[in-house]
């Protein structure tokens, strides 16, 4: 196995994704040329729907990082960041982004043309500390861009109360006022409702697609996780709905015709934590043992339905819930979610990625491991790696841990 490796995809619709990615970045550059304001923002919040509703162009530095990893740009970006004094112990998304904006950004030959320069930067007050800092560096790098400091209560999902929602709503209203002032564009609430409706439809399709993974054999594995791109960048648009509809149709057909990811599915696996973006081929590694990754933590972040009749409140709820759902903010809820997924997807074993680049998702994994064993009798293996930095990943150690684990599961299932 290679240290950096692309995944083998089985869906025909997965091939369309390359064009969807290219179109998104092209649209960003065209928007820049046309004078359409561009805002850099963190993912998993309600900003995207507002942007599309106001005909503004969003850009997602965190999403650019996996793209960099796929194109092999991460090493160069890390080098730039480390020369600036950034510790290798910091989150890889952050180091990649900072390295990119202070390094190769704007140079010739950057794949997809890179990120278009921001006219606005949103500094998040919620989410993880590396994300907060990442955007602070972005604001420093682009002093001409208008900056909005956006607050968001950090609260476990099970503790969300009316006042948290009201504050999140007041912040969204402040954002709308800011956008109106900076861009001169007014928000049409009917368009916002439509964006929220499309977003909700995308979430419904996402849930439907994920539900087909319960079939045996599963028609879709984590090797196709790139599908998530439309959930990150195109929520609130018809593009996401149309694409996910085609994916859903294909997955449904495969499920009904019992076409699995591999010919002889023997072991069903759960993946906890962010994938190794520079080695999505790792998801195919398990196939030599008859193993398929049929569910993962990260995909749950896109499973939040929105109340179309209350668009602002729906976006507030989405903003409040997305990050806690997949992090240590809401450990109880996260554990419940993993256990439920393992039951629903008939999981035989779990791969817990102890992620050097993401403590908020890694913390609590050992409690999850114990709960899986004690409550469901599901064994886990912990692999030490990093979602962005291949230097923190050893193939030999991975194989040393995973091979006997898979052999053990094989013996158990047979």
């Amino acid at each position, binding site marked *: 196995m290679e240290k950096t490796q692309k995944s083998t995809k089985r869906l025909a619709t997965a091939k369309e994704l390359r064009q969807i990615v290219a179109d998104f970045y092209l649209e960003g550059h065209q928007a820049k040329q046309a004078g359409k304001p561009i805002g850099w923002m963190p993912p998993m919040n309600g900003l995207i729907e507002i942007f599309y509703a106001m005909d503004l162009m969003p850009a997602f530095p965190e999403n650019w990082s996996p793209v960099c990893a796929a194109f092999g740009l991460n090493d160069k970006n890390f080098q730039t960041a480390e020369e600036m004094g950034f510790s290798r112990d910091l989150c890889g998304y952050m180091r990649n982004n900072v390295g990119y904006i202070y390094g190769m950004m704007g140079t010739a030959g950057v794949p997809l043309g890179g990120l278009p320069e921001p006219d606005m930067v949103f500094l998040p007050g919620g989410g993880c500390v590396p994300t907060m800092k990442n955007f602070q560096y972005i604001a420093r790098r682009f002093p001409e861009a208008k900056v909005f400091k956006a607050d968001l209560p950090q609260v476990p999902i099970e503790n969300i109360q009316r006042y948290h929602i009201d504050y999140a709503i007041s912040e969204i209203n402040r954002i709308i006022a800011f956008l109106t002032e900076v861009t001169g564009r007014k928000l049409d609430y009917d368009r916002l409702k439509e964006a929220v409706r499309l977003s909700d439809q995308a979430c419904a399709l996402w849930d439907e697609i994920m539900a087909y993974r319960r079939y045996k054999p599963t028609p879709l594995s984590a090797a196709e996780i790139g599908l998530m791109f439309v959930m990150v960048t195109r929520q609130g648009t018809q593009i996401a709905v149309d694409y996910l509809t085609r994916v859903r149709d294909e997955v449904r057909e495969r499920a009904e015709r019992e076409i699995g990811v591999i010919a002889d599915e023997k072991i069903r696996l759960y993946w906890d934590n962010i994938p190794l973006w520079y080695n999505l081929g790792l998801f195919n590694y398990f196939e030599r043992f008859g193993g398929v990754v049929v569910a993962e933590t990260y995909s749950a972040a896109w499973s939040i339905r929105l109340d179309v009749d209350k668009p602002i409140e729906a976006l507030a709820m989405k903003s409040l819930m997305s990050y806690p759902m997949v992090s240590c903010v809401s450990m109880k809820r996260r554990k419940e979610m993993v256990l439920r997924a393992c039951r629903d997807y008939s999981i035989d074993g779990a791969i817990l990625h102890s992620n050097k680049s993401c403590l908020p998702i890694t913390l*609590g994994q050992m409690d999850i491991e114990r709960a899986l064993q004690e409550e469901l009798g599901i064994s886990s293996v912990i692999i030490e790696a990093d979602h962005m930095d291949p230097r923190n990943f050893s193939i030999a150690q991975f194989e040393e841990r995973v091979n006997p684990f898979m052999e053990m599961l094989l013996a158990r299932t047979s």
Partner: protein
Amino acid sequence: MSHIDLSPFVDAVRERAELLPRYAERQKVFGWFCTYTPIELIHAAGFLPVRIYGGATPIKLANTLVPDFVCPYMRTSLERALRGEYKYLSGVIQGYTCDVPCGIINIWEENAGPGLFHSVPLPYNTTESAKSFYRETLTELTQKLAAYGGNIDADSLQRSLDLYREIRTCLLHLHELRFQNRLALSASGFYTVAEAGFSLPPDVYLKYLQSLTSALGNKEPRKTAGIPVIVSGSLLEDTTVFDLIESAGGRVAADDLCNGYRFCCPADGTGSDPMERLIDRYMRRFPCPARSVIGDRVIRIKELIERSGAAGVIFVFQKFCTPHLADYPALADELKKDGIPVLQVETDETISNRGQLKTRFEAFFEMIGV
């Protein structure tokens, strides 16, 4: 250097593991990690707030629950909790700043609970709506404390605010003397005084502090040799680093630490009611990187340099401390632009790299001295 009697503070630090369970027999004791925790509110409820001590200790149990790339303070704190050393606590209350304490508090509850384990969400802005939101979060904490028998009213909160204002005023006075090189205490003595306040009942601590300030006032101010520096980082529980700085030719003239200036500045807030006073103080407090933008910290650190006459800044980070490691490149860049020398070092809880630190401090002071 010091002829001042620090024994009440030294004893309080040395004996806290024995003293605190005894305190807990009389009143509920709640732990906290971060200086963004509204300890006045906990005290006003009739409880004793104490900072969780991590300290130097071998880590075994915590390794079964968290990876090794967690900062030493969090790992050792969890280790002690799992060993049962914090059984006397009725819970842990935390201002939500860094991601890691938020996760650790949940792991603690799961594995060494039960009790009141609560992270207080904090505003990122200072708008009116942020203030209203903050008030709601504190009201929620008040209710949670009430469920544990706490009884907070305007008078009790006012009294607690007054008490902590006096404590912070005394500590700020010591900081001020240190800025002027008129403090007859070694750096390790200074931080022992501060450390004692994290576990003593505040009324007792205030008396000790007042005696100390009075004793210091009676002494002839004496200038201490050494190149003045600011020490910046999160928490430095082990005073070895300060001793190493002083023995290498430096003098700690100011700090940007959780167990230093960040705890006591400002002493108080203002407002039409006690809750507003509390909110005002915490919203104007000396910032931590986890809840502020880098530019604001640059301004604050430059102010400290101005006031203390520091000739350089030594950043002492706990390994894997994301908020501080993330701010460092920009802070260093801004300070260097102003010709201020900076040094960055990392430590673990046992300061196992003390030989290396000593060499680096000596080289740094030699460079500044030249």
